[in-house]
């Protein structure tokens, strides 16, 4: 695997390989020495053009646990904020010998440009680009679902065939929703999008997803195995996507009443950070069906797997 840019084009066997390798990575976290020497001498650069402490430290932890050297490059206060182009930054990284570049960027397609442009030879890992994709988030979500569904010992090699997943929130602007949609479909799950029409992606009508406007109806009809709540940004309120937070929470928030309506086995997921009381109630966030904290831990394992698969073997031209 030369780059990890999206889940839209990630083949099923590649996805399972990442998830199964992540199982091995997770196992090392139970040992006394939680570090592996595998990427010793390799340099991983976190190229973050958007503020994101959580994702960045997750990637940093992942790289360090594989003994790679980590360089953090954040846009604020760097030459980037003074107008240095993506191309020049990339070529600087190449010159200092970066083996892998983890990039988060507000422009959709920036990781793809970095990977295909020929400016660098490093492997490129998309940590979130605009409203396009966030592949490692989808992978850690799938990893979490798999582990909860089959248990730690029996997850290896399994996919999510037949699982019903409901995703709720600002889907139109969500790269997490998109990456999850493609990956879950690849792994055999059925996905439903729930949101007011203003927050549904324009193309969703043609995508392999059920579009609903009512969360209550989705819970009732789909009897989901997983309900994934996405963060609502109050800026959307100002751009007339919905009138106010109260109306949003009343219709699409996972409150205590809706939590009680969920099937017993249903998982409650959230990529974080959460707006408690807006898209998710505290009770839901803290219930034992909530996977919020293990999603964070699993994120490190999945990112270790991704970095390992990207950087350890012989580097070929084939993507």
């Amino acid at each position, binding site marked *: 695997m030369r780059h990890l840019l999206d889940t*839209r084009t990630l083949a099923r066997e590649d996805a399972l390989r990442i998830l199964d390798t992540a199982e091995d990575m997770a196992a090392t976290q139970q040992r006394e020495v939680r570090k592996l020497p595998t990427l010793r001498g390799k340099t991983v650069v976190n190229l973050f053009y958007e503020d994101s402490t959580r994702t960045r430290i997750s990637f940093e932890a992942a790289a360090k646990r594989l003994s790679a050297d980590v360089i953090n490059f954040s846009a604020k206060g760097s030459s980037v904020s003074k107008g240095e*182009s*993506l*191309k020049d930054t990339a070529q600087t990284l190449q010159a200092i010998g970066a083996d892998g570049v983890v990039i988060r*960027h*507000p*422009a*959709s*397609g*920036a990781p*793809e*440009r970095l990977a*295909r*442009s020929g400016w660098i030879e490093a492997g490129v890992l998309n940590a979130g*680009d*605009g*409203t*396009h*994709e966030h592949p490692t988030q989808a992978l850690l979500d799938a990893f979490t679902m798999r582990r909860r569904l089959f248990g730690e010992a029996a997850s290896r090699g399994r996919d999510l065939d037949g699982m019903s997943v409901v995703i709720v929130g600002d889907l*139109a602007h969500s*790269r997490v929703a*998109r990456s999850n949609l493609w990956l879950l479909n690849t792994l055999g799950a059925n996905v439903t999008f729930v949101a007011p029409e203003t927050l549904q*992606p*324009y*193309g*969703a*009508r*043609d*995508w392999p997803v059920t579009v609903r406007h009512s969360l209550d109806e989705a819970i009732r009809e789909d009897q989901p195995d997983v309900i994934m709540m996405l963060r609502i940004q109050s800026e959307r309120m100002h751009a007339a996507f919905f009138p106010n937070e109260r109306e949003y929470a009343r219709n699409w928030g996972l409150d205590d009443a809706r939590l009680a309506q969920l099937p017993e086995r249903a998982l409650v997921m959230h990529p974080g950070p959460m707006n408690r009381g807006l898209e998710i109630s505290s009770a839901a966030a803290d219930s034992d069906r909530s996977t919020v904290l293990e999603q964070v831990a699993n994120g490190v394992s999945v990112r270790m797997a991704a970095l390992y698969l990207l950087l350890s073997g012989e580097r070929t031209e084939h993507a």
Partner: protein
Amino acid sequence: MTQNPGLLIRGARLAADLTERDADISVADAVDLRIADGRIVERGTGLQAREGERVIDAAGLVAFTGFVDLHTHLREPGFEQSETVLTGTRAAAAGGFTSVFAMANTLPVADTAGVVEQVQALGDAAGYATVRPIGAVTEDLAGERLSEIGAMAQSRAAVRVFSDDGKCVHDSLLMRRALEYVKTFDGVIAQHAQDPRLTEAAQMNEGALSSELGLKGWPAVAEESIIARDVLLAEHIGSRLHICHLSTAGSVEVVRWAKARGVQVTAEVTPHHLLLTEDLVRSFDPRYKVNPPLRRDTDVQALRQAVADGVIDIVATDHAPHPTEAKECEWDAAAFGMVGLESAFPIALQTLVQGGYASFAELEGLLSQTPAQIGGLLGHPSSLSVNQPADLVLVDPSGISVFDAQRLQGRSINSPYLGMELPGLVHTTVRRGYLTLDAGAVVDVEIVAAAAQAANAVQGAVSASVRGGTR
């Protein structure tokens, strides 16, 4: 002052004689054309070469009246790093264009007599093409106050086409006033139809693909709704209206409806909208980023059919040069636009003539006669007949070649066609009786400048009694 040498073109087919769609060029008889003192002086067969004449063997070539681009960005003054009047008109000559209309979004904006006269003068001095400056509709393209339309019309540049292209004249009252005011000066407003409120920060055509790629959408309705409003205004006022770079099937239907009602509206399409679709954006390569954006295949097909039906009147390039750093970056940060002067004919040949949507004669209308009419271009030949001004182009419609960077003659290389196989070639371009493109090679700067001076001297001496472009 030396005179320009005469030219004898031997054995060309005239586009005007090729009136059937899908015709082989051999159905028309070959013709010889003798050119002297900036005019066609003889037309027949078996013409003998005179002393000092340059003979051009045009066997297998088709002769058109010189192409006229009603929509070009020459970038000077202000953006000379992308293009200048000199480099842009060299690119025009390479594409077979003898006249270009230069859009007003320069720096300073062409909203005063001073700027338009400067642009015209630069074009005349360079000599590669007749440069007709387009004046801005509103001051500084700000969309608030009408610019000095009268002053520009009455200047030496004699501006007749006014456009805020790059931006839309979106205020309805202002558009109304503009349509009324230009009637006074026999002018036409060329509208860049794009509702700004529906397209804030838009990046590509709005649809399933844009939401998959996470790029902000530019919905078709943002173009169609402005055209609908403007044709109704034009009808109400009784003025002429020209729509720039039509890009959607819906826009075609609006214009079709308006023409059926007798509205004096004309519409243009760019070569890229006749060929390329939004699927190319999957690569996130900004060479495909353009405004209006590349649309769906159904739109491309509708535009071709609209040309065949006469709903679309002309092909115009919207040649939009940009420096490499403006395209070598992430999509959101990239500039909108593609260069298109050199590739216009091959694409029109492939999509319209070879596609069966237009004959060569109709192509002469699309690329030469009709844009000259809409723009009120004086001194343009209405046909390749005796006494007509010698603005003409010889093209080779046969063969296929790879369009590479060598074919680009302007200063910028932001073409989406690099590496593509395209049919046909522009062979020779003649402006005012002298060569600007000679067997595929652009003629040297000094030679053209001198030839232009010589041609000017002759033109001044001869009365302009033959008006080429009539309304």
